[in-house]
């Protein structure tokens, strides 16, 4: 098994043992449950696009919460020194943590399927194709947010700072779609391209476009690479 997979397995196992994981988990499910109920019962529509868009907003908070400790905690407790002197690449550390966070995201997204099942049982028609691509889209956007979270966590040993920074960077990518009101339309066209919402929209419509997949993959890769570079730079700059 490669280093990244071993780290991912250990991280995931430890996360499942921590109370904090479950608290964040429950909060996420409460909010999403409320949203699903709102669309299905009040609006009497199985159009789940609204729910997915709200889930996207929740990810902005959920992902920094699960990634904030990933590297910052290792740095703070000194275990990063142990990990960096083992015969594994620094990239394996970052990708191992990435995989563990992806697994957590997948776990939480899969458990929202309960709501979907309820909606299906209570007999309002659901466009399953769009729901499937919607989940895929959330996973892709989630991967990018996780990479951002890892990068923020790699910067210092402070978890709170990592959370705030991850939230701030993620929010920039999220809010880009709303800047249309302030800037010329011509400029907005290119700015909008970097908005996560812009790429998520196709997924929610039930369309998988390779350009969207590629966009999220590139963002994910860039931030994971930045995190890895940060770990390498620590060798040169460490002041302790």
């Amino acid at each position, binding site marked *: *098994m490669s*280093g990244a997979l*071993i*780290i991912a397995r*250990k991280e995931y196992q*430890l996360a499942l*043992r*921590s109370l904090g994981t479950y608290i964040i988990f429950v909060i996420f499910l409460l909010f999403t449950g409320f949203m699903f109920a709102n669309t299905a019962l009040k609006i009497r529509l199985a159009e789940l696009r609204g729910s997915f868009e709200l889930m996207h907003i929740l990810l902005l908070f959920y992902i920094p919460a699960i990634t904030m400790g990933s590297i910052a905690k290792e740095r703070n*407790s*000194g*275990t*990063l*020194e*142990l*990990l*960096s*002197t*083992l*015969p*594994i*690449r620094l990239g394996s550390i970052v990708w191992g943590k990435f995989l563990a966070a992806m697994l957590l995201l997948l776990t939480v997204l899969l458990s929202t399927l309960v709501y979907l099942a309820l909606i299906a049982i209570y007999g309002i028609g659901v466009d399953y194709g769009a729901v499937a691509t919607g989940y895929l889209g959330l996973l892709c956007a989630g991967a990018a947010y996780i990479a951002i979270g890892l990068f923020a966590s790699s910067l210092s040993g402070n978890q709170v700072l990592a959370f705030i920074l991850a939230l701030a960077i993620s929010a920039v990518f999220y809010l880009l779609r709303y800047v249309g009101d302030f800037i010329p339309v011509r400029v907005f066209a290119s700015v909008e391209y970097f908005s996560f919402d812009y790429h998520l929209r196709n997924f929610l419509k039930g369309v998988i476009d390779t350009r969207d997949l590629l966009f999220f993959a590139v963002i994910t890769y860039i931030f994971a690479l930045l995190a890895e570079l940060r770990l390498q730079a620590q*060798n*040169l700059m*460490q*002041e302790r």
Partner: protein
Amino acid sequence: MIEIKELSRSFGAIRAVDKISFRVETGEIVGFLGPNGAGKTTTLRMLVGYLQPGGGSIELDGQSIFQAPLAASARIGYLAEHNPLYDEMSVMEFLRYVGSLRKMKKGELHHRLDYVIDNCGLEPVLNQSIKTLSKGFRQRTGLAQAILHDPEVLILDEPTSGLDPNQILEIRELIRELGASKTVILSSHIMQEVQALCDRVIIINKGRIVVDDSIGNLDSYIQGYNSVVLEVEASEPDFSPLLASLTDVELDSVEQRGEVCKLRFLCPPERNISRELSAYAVAQGWPIVSVFTQKQSLEEIFHELTREEEESAEQAMLLAGLEEESGHADELEITAETHLRADIQEEEPIPEKEQKEEPEEDEEKIP
């Protein structure tokens, strides 16, 4: 075999390690000593590849560790200064995790786990979470992790800190055993430990090597005195006739406790005067209670060496200051004053023995 050449590292303006070079052979245990902030941990961190050196080279069997860092770290076992461990894991989980990250095969891992658990005495806490371990068991877990993959080079940053005396003996025994076939570098601030364990000692101070020699040769770095303590049953015995014939021996202190009088004599390290002293006491009819020689401890040597270094560095700085500023008359005075003050301060802590030399000289002159 590990060899470092001209290794340097600065943090900002502070030169933590300044062009140090040494070489450690297989089967050698080297003690790395120095006061706090001397650059011990920085050097060890560079040796394990955690810190990038500012200059110089580190070679493991003739190959730079930065050429193939993964291969090099597979051959090195490292116990870091604060012994970082994953608190949420149990001891067994942690060791298995480290083993799998070191890509050990199942059978080999099983075999080595048995060995380290047995030798580090981890049996009673195997399934306990590391968070709940005592400091001694934490330290042993850290050591177990470092030797798990049977490394050729073992680098231990203060391996026995936090252990009780029995555990210290056990761990020392283990390190000694490992040292027979491996290259071991251990840092410590405990002199007895280095004295008990190491073949060789490297003392560093302010990033520079002050001493690099075998433990036995350390005495030669210091012109100290051995002291011989003689306890005899007599009230205020008079040794002056004997002392008159032994010009290089002096009486340091006399302490009368009831029947027994305790006398301390100072003599050069190469001389053994206990025979003369006891013969004289017997001839005078004073029963001898005890007689023993106290060698200067490594601690004293360490203290002297690191202090000397500081003094000479300070003096060099002051001299440099004097030369630089000789153009400015006003400033020159100030510097000269500080120089004087520094001299006064330095004279104060001079050990008693050196002060005792003066009366001896006087005695010599009188006859």
